[in-house]
């Protein structure tokens, strides 16, 4: 993945839909980005409103390589994402990508794909490309915020949890996993830090290799500003301290590689 090309281009919105409370889906027509995109990589999406300087890092949800199209699913969390949600088919947005390393697709018979909240979208393209049996465990805040379930069901067995029990099992993704008797050889996860911390300790306890995708506030998205670091066990290549850059060395890390 190192030294691969990145592009900044004006992408055309093919379609935007609201798919749950505060959750939106955009399909982009790109020139080059979709062709190079891997599951687990992300885009920097730029606002048009000039006072919002920094691109928003948003993970790639789905890719149609042949048509050079890709999809992002995002949550409105502030003014920038609110702005994105106002755009319609035919509008253009500046995007840069594909950024970051993405998941390394391993060969295995059985894998867990674990997603929490707005960490769920990157699992879709991953599920499409992974061979073998997949148990897909999704954690949501509540029953009003369910999304991508039907799409993910095409690629594996889906179980869900909600914090308030309004859909699926009441609790979190780990509560779902505890009830499973599934001999996974690999875990792929993306979600909020507390969830990833729980996945990390579960993986360690069971001796299952896990790849986890992290997030942090970013400025440049390309490894220069050093805003989005996480603590790493090994000395990092860039600064020779213990700070890996989520945008460039990640966002996907081996669970044992980082301290959350």
């Amino acid at each position: 993945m190192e030294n691969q090309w990145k592009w900044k281009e004006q992408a055309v919105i093919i379609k935007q839909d609201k798919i749950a409370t505060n959750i939106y889906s955009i399909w982009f027509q790109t020139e080059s980005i979709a062709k190079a995109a891997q599951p687990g990589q992300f885009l920097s999406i730029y606002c048009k409103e000039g006072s919002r300087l920094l691109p928003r890092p948003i993970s790639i949800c789905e890719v149609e390589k042949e048509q050079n199209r890709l999809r992002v699913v995002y949550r409105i969390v502030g003014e920038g994402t609110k702005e994105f949600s106002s755009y319609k088919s035919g509008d253009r947005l500046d995007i840069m990508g594909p950024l970051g390393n993405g998941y390394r697709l391993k060969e295995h018979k059985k894998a867990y794909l674990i997603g929490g909240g707005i960490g769920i979208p990157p699992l879709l393209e991953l599920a499409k490309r992974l061979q073998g049996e997949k148990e897909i465990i999704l954690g949501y805040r509540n029953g009003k915020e369910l999304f991508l379930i039907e799409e993910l069901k095409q690629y594996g067995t889906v179980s869900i949890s909600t914090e308030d029990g309004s859909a699926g099992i009441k609790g979190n993704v780990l509560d779902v996993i505890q009830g499973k008797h599934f001999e996974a050889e690999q875990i792929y996860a993306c979600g909020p830090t507390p969830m990833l911390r729980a996945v990390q300790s579960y993986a360690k306890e069971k001796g299952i290799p896990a790849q986890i995708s992290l997030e942090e506030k970013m400025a440049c998205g390309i490894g220069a500003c050093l805003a989005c670091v996480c603590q790493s066990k090994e000395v990092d290549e860039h600064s020779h301290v213990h700070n890996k850059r989520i945008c460039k060395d990640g966002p996907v890390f081996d669970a044992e590689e980082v301290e959350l």
Partner: protein
Amino acid sequence: MNTKVNIAGVELKNPVMTASGTFGSGAEYCDFVDLNRLGAVVTKGVANVPWPGNPTPRIAETYGGMLNAIGLQNPGIDVFRKRDIPFLKQYDTKIIVNVCGKTTEDYCEVVECLAEEEIDLMEINISCPNVKEGGIAFGQDAKAVEAITKELKKRAKQPIIMKLSPNVTSIADMAKAAEAGGADALSLINTLTGMKIDIEKRTFALANKTGGLSGPAIKPVAVRMVYEAANAVKIPMIGMGGIQTAKDAIEFILAGATAVSVGTANFFCPTATLEVIEGIEQYMKKHGVNEIGELVGCVK
């Protein structure tokens, strides 16, 4: 048309460089920018030993700007010499190494290490608002500015640029102090200390509580300070603070800057430096300016 400028005896092909900390040592920008086209690359600050920097979140966006409290994370001078200087030497651009430290001795150690290296200039960061020791502590007192400049001049083989803080009462006094200490040039401004509060979580947006404000929002402050400093001293000035277009850069040049640095704009427009270079050329053509030097400080 001549866009060459001279900083302390070093000739730059054009006046556009990168602001320290916004461009790494250039490697991350190679997909977007031909480094050969830049007047100079100013590297991210380097200390005598590796620094881990501050906890996250380290940045927050603000209206027309951003706050950062990276805390000068850097690999230390040994790795920097082995990796970053050889990397930059492949390009036909000037190399300006930004130096940071916690104590006068730290700064001296880095400056001495760099004496053997084929770099063109050193920029001394006495103005970082995000580290507890060193940094800005040297940059907010005129006597301290003069004293550290003198110490470094005794040891430096290359000309030194002192990078000044805007978080002072009189920028002219700081500029004079650096000049009195023997500085060959000045860089200004570093970031303005700021704060952002998340009203939903009722916490600070940055783990460090405060951070340095940069981006277009600070440009008028920076232009004013460059103007005041340029009128207080004779040494050349490198102007920076919110430059994203050639128009911004030309304002700084007219206010008295010999050269300019593009900083935060690199984060949201990776090709910003090239756009500024091209825009300056277009401005010169449009206005019949043959020598860029004619513009420097011509607004009095």
